[in-house]
Every structure is written in C-alpha cells, then in structure tokens.
C-alpha cells in the first residue's frame, strides 16, 4: 500500500495502461508538454513519447469527433476535456455518436473511448468552470458515467474504464486532486458498474456520488457521536447503475438520503429516489431526502458558492429529517 493523492493515482493509472496496451493514447488541450491544467498527465509525454501523448487544438469538437473515429477503428483514445462544462461542446459526439454506435452497428463494433474531465464547485471558478455534468448524460443510453471518490477507486476505475469496450465519461472532482488515500502497489482494477458500501450503518442509507462521498462520510462520523448509524453507498458508476446494493441497504435502514453536487431538481438523486420508490417503497419509514444544489448556475461570490454547494450540515439535516427529528 502507498499513500497517494487522487492526482497521482490517476497519473499512475494512465501510465500503467499506456504501458500495457499500445492501442491506448492520450491527448487533449495542454496535456502533453505542459502536463495538463491540473498537472494530472505530468511526465507522461516524456515517458511515452509524442506518439502516445500529444496536445491538440483548442477544439472540443475535434477531440470528441476524432476520439469516436479512433475508437471505432481499433484504438483506445483517452481524451482530456479541460473542464466538465465543456462537455456541452462534445455532447453531440458523445450522445449521438459514441453512445449509439454499438446500437447502430450490427457486428458488435463498440466505441472504447474514455473522456476524462473534471467538475466541482468550491474554488470560485464560476458558472462555466464548476458544473457537475452528471445529469446531462444520465439519460443517454450507451454512455457509461463514472465518478470516483477515493484515490483507490480513481486508479482502479480509470484502468477499468480504459479497458472497457464502451464509451466512458470519467469525472474527476477538481477540488480533491490533493486528497490522499491508500492505494495498493501494483496493478489492479475496480470494476465499473458496481456500487460500493463506503460505510456500514443501520439507521439511514446515504447514497452519495463523487466528491459528495467525502461529505457524506464526514457527516456520518459526526452523527455517529450521537448514536446515529449512517450507511454510505457510493455507486461509483452512475450509468448504468448497480441498483441492488442501494435497495438492499434501504430495506435494512428504511431511510434514504441522496447527495449530489448538481441541482436537486432533475438530478441523479431524483432517479435514485424513483428507483427506490418503485422497488422498496414498503420498506421506507420516512420521505426520501435529496441533498443537492439549488436550481441556479454555480455562483461566483465566496458566500454564494458556499451556500450553493451541499455540505456536511445539509447531509446531517437531511438524515435527521428522515429520522423524524
């Protein structure tokens, strides 16, 4: 085991997969010589050469389109989109092309590409460099959406995403590149499409995704001092969703809180709530609580952004609500 940051674990995953599979290549704006805006790909061009790691024009249209074309024709491109907000530009190639070609072809052809991008409010980057794009893509059959929460999962899930035959949007929380955690030495993967129980508890189930897993765990620790035993489920892959562990947990605790970073309305939480209402309604002992952002763009001012971003207190309040407190 080593103590690695999220940034280091992503960098290791990329290096190991570039090493393992010659079809893998890494490209994007400023990823090569500069090492990426967040320095996630630092040192990789030096190690693997300009043929495997290279810069591109400032054109997400080119990145999206060429990644689809390359993936359709025998390679495994890993693209970095500088901010998740820019996925709106690539959305045509992701939703109409990448997501649909396996369906469109009759010979099993698929689109094994990975789009790495980041998201996350909290650093005053404002309304066009902070959004969480999960809900934009959760209604697109054919896309896989992965949002890890720990260095261990970042590394293992990214390696699995690169090896996966379907198009994967890999979401990195930009506020947590420095977060440290235990990562096994040597190669390992964490399977896509498998939910993970990050904390075992009896009283309330909290389903949290991406950066909100940390928030949920911190809230759970505080509640534990009052004897409230919170279970935290991290779906890790949002689409397609591994639902059963969530249902099992709710059947045990009878209470559900869903936490995510984007606006509550129309978000991932509503979908989880609906799934649980369909599958486990008669096990619920309280209305389902959703914790998310208000229905506004991400604001700039320090206090406004703080009010926007869900935090521990929000999760604790929601948990208390489900307990009728």
């Amino acid at each position: 085991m080593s103590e690695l940051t999220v940034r280091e674990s992503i960098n290791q995953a990329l290096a190991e997969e570039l090493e393992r599979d010659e079809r893998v290549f890494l490209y994007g704006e400023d990823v090569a010589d500069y090492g990426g805006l967040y320095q996630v790909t630092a040192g990789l061009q030096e190690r693997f050469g300009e043929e495997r790691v290279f810069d591109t024009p400032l054109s997400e249209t080119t990145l999206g389109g060429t990644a689809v074309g390359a993936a359709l024709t025998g390679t495994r491109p890993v693209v970095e989109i500088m901010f998740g907000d820019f996925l709106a530009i690539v959305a045509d190639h992701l939703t109409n092309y990448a997501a649909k070609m396996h369906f469109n072809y009759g010979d099993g052809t698929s689109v094994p590409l990975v789009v790495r991008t980041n998201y996350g409010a909290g650093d005053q980057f404002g309304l066009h460099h902070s959004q969480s794009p999960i809900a934009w893509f959760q209604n697109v059959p054919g896309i896989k959406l992965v949002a890890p929460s720990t260095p261990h999962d970042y590394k293992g899930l990214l390696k699995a995403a690169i090896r996966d035959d379907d198009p994967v949007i890999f979401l990195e929380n930009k506020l947590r590149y420095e977060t440290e955690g235990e990562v096994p030495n040597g190669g390992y993967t964490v399977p896509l499409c498998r939910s993970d129980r990050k904390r075992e508890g009896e009283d309330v189930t909290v389903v949290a995704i991406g950066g909100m897993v940390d928030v949920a765990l911190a809230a759970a620790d505080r509640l534990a001092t009052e004897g409230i035993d919170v279970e935290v489920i991290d779906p890790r892959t949002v689409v397609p969703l591994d639902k059963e562990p969530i249902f099992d947990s709710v059947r045990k605790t009878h209470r559900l809180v869903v936490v995510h970073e984007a606006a509550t309305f129309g978000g991932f939480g509503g979908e989880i709530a609906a799934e649980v209402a369909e599958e486990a309604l008669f096990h619920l002992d309280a209305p389902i609580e959703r914790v998310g952002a208000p229905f506004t763009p991400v604001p700039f001012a320090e206090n406004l952004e703080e009010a926007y971003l869900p935090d521990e207190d929000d999760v604790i309040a929601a948990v208390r609500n489900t307990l009728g407190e």
Partner: protein
Amino acid sequence: MELTDERRTEVYESLLLTRRFEEAVLEAYESGGVPELPHLSIGQEAVGVGATYALEEDDWIAPSLRTRAPILMRVPLEEVVAGMYGTRSGPSEGRTTQHHMGSTERAILGTTGMVGSHLNVAVGAGLSSRQLGNDRVSTVFFGDGATTRGEFHTALNYAAVEDLPVVFVIENNGWTEETPIGQVAAVEEDLIEFAGHDLPSSVVDGQDADEVIAATAEAAERARAGDGPTLLEMKTYRYRPHAEVIPERRDEAEIERWKARDPVTIYRDRLLEEGIVDEGWLEDADASIRADVEAAFQFAREDPLPPEEAMYQVYADVEVDRDGGVVR
C-alpha cells in the same frame, strides 16, 4: 491509377446499380412501400462510385446519408434494402436505417443525423491509422451545407496540422436542403476557398466518374505517403429534392441542364465510343441489375421484422436490464 477495360465496365455497373436501386426506392416510396424516408442521390452517382473505386477495399469510408454508392459497392444489396424496411436482415436488425449504417468488416464508418458530425470522426480514423502504423486512408463524403459548420473547419485544421491520411470529398450539389449554397457560404465561386489551410485542394467534375477516380486516387496516394489530407470539391447535382417529403421548388431548366450531363449516360457513351462494350452488353447488364434490385426488394418485403430483443444492444461490456439496471 491504371484503369483496365474490365475495371471500367465495373465502374459502369456500379453507376447503374446505384441508379436502378434508387429508382426502385422512389417507386416503392411513391407506392407507399418503404418506411425509411428516401434522401436520394440520383444524379450524384459518379462521386461515390468514382471515389470508392479509387480506394483500397480496407480504406475507411465515411459516407453522408446521401452517399449511397459506396454502401452499395461494399454491402450486399439485400442487406441494404432490408435496412430500409427495418427488417431482421438489415445492417443492424432494424435498430437503425441503412442511412447511418456502419460496418467494421467493410470499413464503413457509421454516421448520425447531425450533418457533418462525421468529419472529425473520419479524421479520428486517420488518427488510428497513424497510431497503429497502418496505411489505411480515411475518405469522408459530405454535402455543401456541411462546409458552413464548425465541424468542417476543425476537421480540416486538425487533419492538416497532424498530416493525417484523410480525403475530404465535398459533394457540392448546389443546394443546402432547399437553399442555394451560394446564398449561405461566403465564397466567390468554389467551396474550396474555405480551405485556406495548409492542405491541397481542387475542384473536380463530379459528373465524370473517370475524373473523380483520378482526383481521389491522387489524394489517397498523397495521404498514404504521409503527406496529409486533401480537400476535393466534386461539382454535382441531385435530380430529386433534399428528401422525398419536400416538394420540388428548383427551376425546371436548372434540373434539365444538369440532366444533360447525366453521370450514367456520360460513362455509358464513353464505353460505347471506345468500343469497350456494345449495345447487347449494355442491355444485358441493365436487365441483370434490374433483376438483382427486384429480387432484393422482394427479399426485404418478405423478411420478418426483428424480435424485440434486437433493440437491447446498448452496451458492449455490461449486461443491463430494460431500465438500464446492471444485471449482476
């Protein structure tokens, strides 16, 4: 490119097959018999036939939805027609129409309903050739309207800056759906004026298959040699509206003027003139192609609709249920 007499008869047969196929589509559509809305290329056949003929069989082709000739040259006719009917033997078991079909084995890149979104995809295929170290060229067909999209400029720029093996073929039929291209494109005369990039470009007579073959072969050779992409503007014309639901509103004289330079007729006359074929051969070829087309339509009409399971092909690497839930 060396064209033997035999290969030139094959070029003619491909032109004629494309023509007879689309005439049959129109006839079936007008009698209420085809579910897929036809976007016919009648009048433009020489572009697709000639360009495809100039390429190797494993060179990637990215057709637009109107580019039927390469599809017909690489995919069995019955499969294409079944694709129009949405039946089980179609290219994707009825999941999509043949308009957007893709086939890795036949080196055809699937496309979408977003005009021009396949340009960067074709550039990506060129990128694969470079990454994998093979010499497969990627040729992309698109209409004049696509040159007004950002896709066109970003794709040209990236292919040129990276010297990728791509041939860009504008099928300039003069009309962006129902608007003349000159009205919406800021060029003096030709769309290649848009190029301005560090890449060779030329205007080609799109009604003459031999001209198309020669220009495309030269571009493909340049690409294969590692000298980067070429932009070819094929001047051509479609005899039908953008799609069959749209009434014809172009000038009748304009249509007749182009019909006087019909690509099938031009090639037939040339083969006769040069003594490569005679009238008997021509009649025989036409009868044979008509019979093939008729048989393919007959096959598709009798082909059953797909089973419901056919549509549950969304992910290649995980099993999901009807509602996208992961099956463990």
